[in-house]
């Protein structure tokens, strides 16, 4: 069943005439004939959960917005920066009107008159395509004053970011959209109560909003028949890394992970074997070969100690060491930490340093315990989950591949045995550039 990727390679689908010929904007018409409450209850019935990572039920999120005559906002989070994730990019590039239609329906349900798409600055092509599509939709009366003759009005502004992972975090995104540095805010108040410009704000991922037209067209109950009971519907899965056919695939939630990785992705490269895999982007705890038969949905992955996240599967095969991947992951979060909360700012940097100690042969197996405890001290102790996003995968790698890391520590110590003691820079004493990690 393809809802989001239905004939997505059709030429010209990014233009209004083709989208309309395929029945585009009929869901918006249908929604405008209902009351906003009816639209919200359709979304609740559908059981759809946020596709951006947290998996919060979308219908409930809309219902949290206060009623009444105030400035309310809707922001579409298109700052897709989670390593391994590229589903929204393909959706926006090939079917921008589906997203616009979804935004307009959600804006009607939530009673917001100003809507924004925050797209990451690197997505230049996708932003150009969206801008052209917004202009077409405005000219056709799908965006603007009194949409399609109804009482509902809504504007839509495309906002380009400028390269910062943290702006995908919802409150960091709001600060960035307000023209500030993208630092996350203290919650509560949650954005639904006090968000953009201090007004109630609904924030949803691209894929979530792009699914809304299909839900309205099918009816919420019909949509809920897809997938599993608690993970309804279809989901875009991005597969990348050491796999034969990387790409985006639309699946029904609840199919076995093996079917996605081997059936769709073609399995590992020739002569290699899967060592471990991230089920939901680089922020999700890793799973191993033994977990391949797991059902791919929100709850089964949570039960296995990981998470669906953005459903971005990254395959790592046996030609790579755990250390090498852990260092990449840790360096990324250390670089992207905004520096506001101490556990994240310090924890990510110290994790990088500890991993580098393993590499340079200065570590002892005790360091693995310290590293694991650092991860535990990050989780839950910051304003946002960026630190947790490093702590969870690193913690899981230390736990699941402890013997390999211990062997690596021994091997590196033997390699470094000949090195002069003076050459070793003590940890914490930085040179004049004082970078937490070497600059190329």
């Amino acid at each position: 069943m393809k809802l989001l990727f239905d004939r997505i390679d059709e030429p010209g689908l990014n233009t209004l005439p083709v989208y309309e010929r395929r029945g585009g904007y009929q869901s918006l018409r249908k929604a405008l004939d209902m009351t906003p409450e009816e639209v919200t209850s359709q979304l609740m019935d559908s059981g759809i959960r946020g596709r951006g990572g947290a998996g919060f039920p979308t219908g409930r999120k809309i219902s949290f917005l206060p009623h009444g005559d105030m400035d309310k906002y809707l922001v579409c989070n298109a700052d897709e920066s989670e390593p391994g994730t590229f589903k929204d990019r393909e959706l926006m590039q090939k079917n921008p009107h589906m997203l616009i239609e979804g935004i307009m329906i959600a804006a009607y349900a939530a009673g917001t008159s100003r809507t924004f798409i925050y797209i990451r600055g690197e997505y230049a092509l996708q932003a150009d395509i969206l801008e052209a599509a917004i202009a077409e939709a405005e000219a056709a009366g799908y965006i603007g004053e009194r949409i399609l003759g109804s009482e509902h009005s809504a504007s839509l502004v495309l906002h380009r970011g400028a390269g910062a992972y943290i702006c995908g975090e919802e409150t960091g995104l709001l600060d960035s959209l307000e023209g500030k540095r993208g630092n996350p805010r203290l919650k509560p108040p949650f954005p639904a109560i006090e968000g953009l410009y201090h007004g109630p704000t609904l924030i949803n991922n691209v894929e979530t909003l792009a699914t809304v037209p299909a839900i309205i067209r099918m009816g919420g109950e019909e949509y809920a028949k897809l997938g599993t009971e608690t993970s309804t519907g279809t989901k875009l899965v991005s597969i990348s890394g050491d796999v034969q056919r990387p790409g985006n695939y639309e699946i029904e939630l609840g199919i076995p992970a093996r079917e996605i990785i081997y059936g769709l992705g073609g399995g590992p490269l020739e002569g290699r074997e899967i060592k471990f895999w991230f089920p939901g982007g680089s922020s999700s705890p890793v799973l191993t070969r033994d977990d391949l038969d797991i059902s791919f949905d929100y709850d089964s992955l949570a039960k296995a100690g990981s998470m669906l996240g953005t459903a971005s599967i990254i395959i790592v095969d046996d030609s790579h060491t755990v250390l090498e991947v852990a260092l990449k992951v840790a360096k990324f979060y250390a670089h992207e930490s905004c520096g506001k909360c101490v556990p994240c700012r310090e924890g990510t940097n110290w994790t990088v340093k500890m991993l580098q100690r393993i590499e340079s042969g200065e570590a002892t197996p005790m360091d693995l315990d310290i590293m694991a405890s650092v991860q535990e001290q990050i989780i839950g102790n910051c304003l946002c989950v960026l630190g947790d996003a490093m702590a969870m995968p690193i913690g899981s790698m230390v736990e699941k591949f402890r013997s390999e890391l211990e062997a690596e520590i021994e091997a590196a110590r033997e390699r470094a045995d000949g090195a002069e003691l003076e050459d070793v820079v003590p940890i914490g004493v930085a040179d004049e550039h004082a970078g937490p990690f070497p600059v190329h």
Partner: protein
Amino acid sequence: MSATGSRRPVPRFGHGSRVPGWDDAVDLTKPPATIPDPALTPVPPGLKETIEAAMAKYPDRRSAAIPALHAAQEVYGWCSPEAIDQVASVMELTPAYLTSVATFYDMFSTVPKPRNDVYVCTNISCSLLGADEFFEAMLAAAEGDPDVDVRSFECLGACDIAPMASVNGEYVGPLDLADAERIVEDLRTGGPVLEHKQLRYRRSADPGVAEEETDFGPPDRDETPMSDTAGLGPEGDAEDRPGPTAAIEMTTEQLADHPEPEKATDEGEHPAGQAPGDGDEGSPRATEEGR
């Protein structure tokens, strides 16, 4: 403020701060900069209008800070103190405020940089497939070229074409080591960069996209089977490839002129969103790519 690895060494501090000048003593004799006087700050007319148009789109003018800095960087090549002063005078903000914004985001540069940006993704999926080696090759290829700025960048959201790079915003991949030279060459000649590897022409990997019907309403035309449109290999004639903007250039008027673009002639054989040279869909990728 910048990517993990860069040719321009960016001062980063042990505690991870992105604030530049942390170590510099503050000159207490100097009053803090206020909003620059518009009368004393000439702004190029195009830039001024762009910033004012951006401010008009938001309930709060400060929201236009990022679009305005993008526009200024476009004009000056980097966020120079003069550029920031000009933006500040139009937006009625202090230069300090705008500097705080400009230093936070990876795409803004507060030091002079070459005209062409090559961002090489060195994050996890790309590095598993040899991105670090490609980054080294790219640095070597651009060595001594004053117009090319090569930076390693965090995940650019295109792991399906790993290892990949963004060349002046154009996504290209999967790359092999020889592509580094070609990118530099294409930038020198000013033509489209690695056109046969551009992401904009790539078809969806999902084999089901063209086959299953949903109740979108019946298609009023024959679906062109994927295998027939899979197109030329990379060695195909460049003339047959769509222009770089084919994906966004199909306007309403053009569609009205060609109501059935799928029946187009040879020129139309690579409709928007489809990759020339992507005929190997479904077949395993070269396993040693870029290693």
